[in-house]
């Protein structure tokens, strides 16, 4: 490593490199450019000169030790493999329950729930805005009853569940907790994750409900409730995944996600919480795109940046507050509708990058996800891909095996520096919320997405089977179809529930919730109470909208 090279030896290396370059001459084929997927130039060769300032103990250290560049666990995958957690959900709770049990039987080690759009936006299945959307791109959950069906026969005390829910995260979380209690599992034994990352909704995924301020209040209420009663729960999964899917570069994904993370930490501190009381339960969620080394370096840089900031700026003392733990999903936007079988190969490469980058859990996309929700067969191949990586490839045997590569260390450093530059720009704009209001992130991402698409159109960015080596063969794989009857059945079940439950009790619960929301009390116990009375998600969200209002975006392109 460069840190061990003496200055005079660095000089000798420089001279030797100059000689080598002269001898080598210009050998690049005309018309070829060497850029990462993010459009960043890549060096042809790295040497100790590229990492001359690197200090092993200061910048890398040992796994499980500050600054965690080499990983958050001391024994990494030798102690425990990453969690194989396939994101899944479709139709009604009965359909998805069957798929979850199938995935668990196939050796999956954690669950990850995909909700349909009405659930994500806080509408019940019988709302006029839900028409045609029920159960389409995830599972429809209207009430605690649906949650009970969704986890029937699945021991929630023994598995952990991740739920991709943001605007109404507090409501869905309360349904999960209430169901756990009904299964006889005490809250302090319940483990899992809610995405609950509203900032990246305004920035990229665009599934918001309330304006930023009350949204952040809901999040800090969740922090406070979880730290007291549900200590094994990851309260936010700070997500770069959707930022990347919306078209950002790797550096933007890294920088915007960490900036969001800092904003949550600051919101928690501002709400009067001790940083070490909630920061250990913050987790992250990154994309794994096709550019192998860029992705690996992104994860390594993310850990180092987070550790340093948490310790140095926010004064966290608990090492668990310094550790950036993350889930990874392979890049949906890298998949092609043409020759979908090729997506298995793309996903394998992306998954390998996530593993070499030290992910704690992983979702591998199914080959057909660019066309529809995955069939059972496609979902099984995706899970098998992880199992082959884990048990056949040997990739998980050595911790952070690419450390010390001149290229990997140099690129890790470069990405850290580029992210720091973004932090300065965001701060200059007045912080994350102010930058959102000014459309800063949205414009940066739209520009990057357009540049990427232009490169594809010009053939500078190759998509095999699409703009190079296209065969034009018709599609030959089976696709999952959602039965249109799902919506009607779900609406009927909901109406039946509404007629059966104690309507007076529901009304009282919603009234108490509104008073709490209008004041400063923690709203979580009130949501929990309403959920247990079988108030629906839509009713609870509507009650909160009365107090909090709704968010509107200024559209730009």
């Amino acid at each position: 490593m460069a840190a061990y090279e003496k200055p005079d030896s660095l000089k000798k290396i420089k001279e030797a490199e100059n000689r080598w370059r002269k001898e080598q001459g210009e050998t690049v084929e005309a018309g070829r450019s060497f850029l990462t997927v993010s459009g960043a130039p890549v060096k042809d060769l790295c040497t100790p000169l590229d990492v001359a300032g690197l200090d092993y103990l200061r910048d890398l250290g040992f796994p499980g030790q500050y600054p965690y560049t080499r990983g958050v666990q001391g024994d990494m995958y030798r102690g425990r493999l990453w969690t194989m957690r396939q994101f899944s959900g479709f139709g009604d709770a009965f359909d998805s329950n069957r798929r979850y049990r199938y995935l668990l039987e196939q050796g999956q080690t954690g669950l990850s729930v995909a909700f349909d759009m009405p659930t994500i936006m806080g509408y019940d299945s019988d709302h006029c805005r839900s028409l045609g959307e029920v159960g389409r791109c995830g599972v429809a959950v209207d009430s605690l009853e649906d949650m009970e069906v969704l986890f029937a026969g699945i021991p929630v005390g023994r598995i952990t569940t991740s739920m991709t829910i943001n605007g109404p995260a507090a409501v869905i979380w309360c349904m999960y907790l209430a169901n756990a209690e009904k299964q006889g599992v005490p809250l302090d034994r319940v483990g899992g994750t809610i995405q609950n990352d509203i900032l990246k909704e305004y920035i990229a995924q665009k599934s918001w409900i309330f304006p930023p301020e009350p949204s952040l209040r809901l999040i800090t209420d969740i922090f406070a409730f979880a730290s007291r009663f549900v200590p094994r729960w990851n309260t936010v999964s700070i997500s770069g995944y959707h930022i990347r899917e919306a078209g950002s570069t790797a550096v933007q994904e890294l920088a915007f996600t960490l900036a969001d993370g800092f904003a949550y930490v600051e919101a928690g501190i501002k709400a009067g919480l001790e940083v070490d009381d909630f920061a250990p339960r913050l987790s992250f969620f990154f994309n794994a795109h096709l550019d192998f080394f860029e992705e690996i370096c992104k994860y390594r840089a993310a850990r180092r940046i987070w550790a340093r900031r948490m310790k140095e700026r926010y004064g966290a003392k608990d090492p668990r507050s310094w550790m950036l733990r993350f889930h990874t999903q392979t890049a949906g936007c890298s998949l092609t509708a043409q020759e979908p079988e090729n997506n298995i190969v793309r996903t394998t490469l992306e998954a390998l990058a996530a593993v070499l980058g030290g992910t704690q859990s992983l979702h591998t996309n199914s080959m057909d996800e660019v066309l529809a929700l995955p069939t059972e067969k496609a979902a099984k191949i995706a899970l098998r891909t992880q199992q082959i990586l884990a048990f056949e490839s040997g990739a998980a045997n050595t911790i952070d095996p690419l450390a010390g590569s001149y290229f990997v260390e140099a690129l890790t450093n470069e990405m850290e520096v580029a992210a720091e530059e973004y932090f300065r720009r965001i701060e200059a704009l007045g912080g994350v919320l102010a930058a959102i209001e000014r459309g800063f992130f949205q414009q940066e991402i739209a520009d990057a997405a357009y540049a990427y698409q232009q490169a594809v159109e010009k053939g500078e960015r190759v998509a095999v089977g699409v703009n190079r080596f296209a065969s034009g063969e018709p599609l030959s794989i089976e696709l999952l179809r959602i039965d249109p009857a799902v919506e009607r059945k779900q609406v009927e079940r909901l109406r039946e529930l509404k007629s059966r439950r104690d309507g007076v009790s529901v009304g009282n619960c919603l009234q108490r919730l509104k008073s709490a929301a209008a004041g400063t009390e923690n709203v979580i116990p009130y949501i929990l109470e309403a959920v247990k009375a079988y108030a629906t998600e839509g009713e609870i969200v509507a009650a909160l909208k009365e107090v909090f209002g709704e968010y509107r975006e200024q559209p730009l392109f």
Partner: protein
Amino acid sequence: MDMSSKRKIRVLVAKPGLDGHDRGAKVVARALRDAGMEVIYTGLHQTPEQVAEAALQEDVDVVGLSILSGAHMTLVPRIKELLNERQLGAVPLLVGGIIPEEDALALKQSGCADRVFTPGDPLESIVSYIRDRCI
């Protein structure tokens, strides 16, 4: 005829339904603008009524819908119906997004959509289709 005085092609790019996937809609909107068209982008989470009303108010030559939530078989026919009600039945209606082939066929055969674009279709194909339809 003086080309500069000719009215630009006006396109409404709309995001009906509940999903927030606006990458495609925004990239297409920009490509159309770069191709010299006047683009009105509705923003997200539009109801069918809002889309049809925007088409009327903005006096557009083409309506493009971007749908990635799987709700296209409900939303597209509904929007077509509302456009017809506003005497905008002749305005070409284009759809883009995750639309399975058989659904695309059904939308075209029922006369709801004039053309369906799916992942991998070049931006140029959208631009030239609109130009051809509007000349």
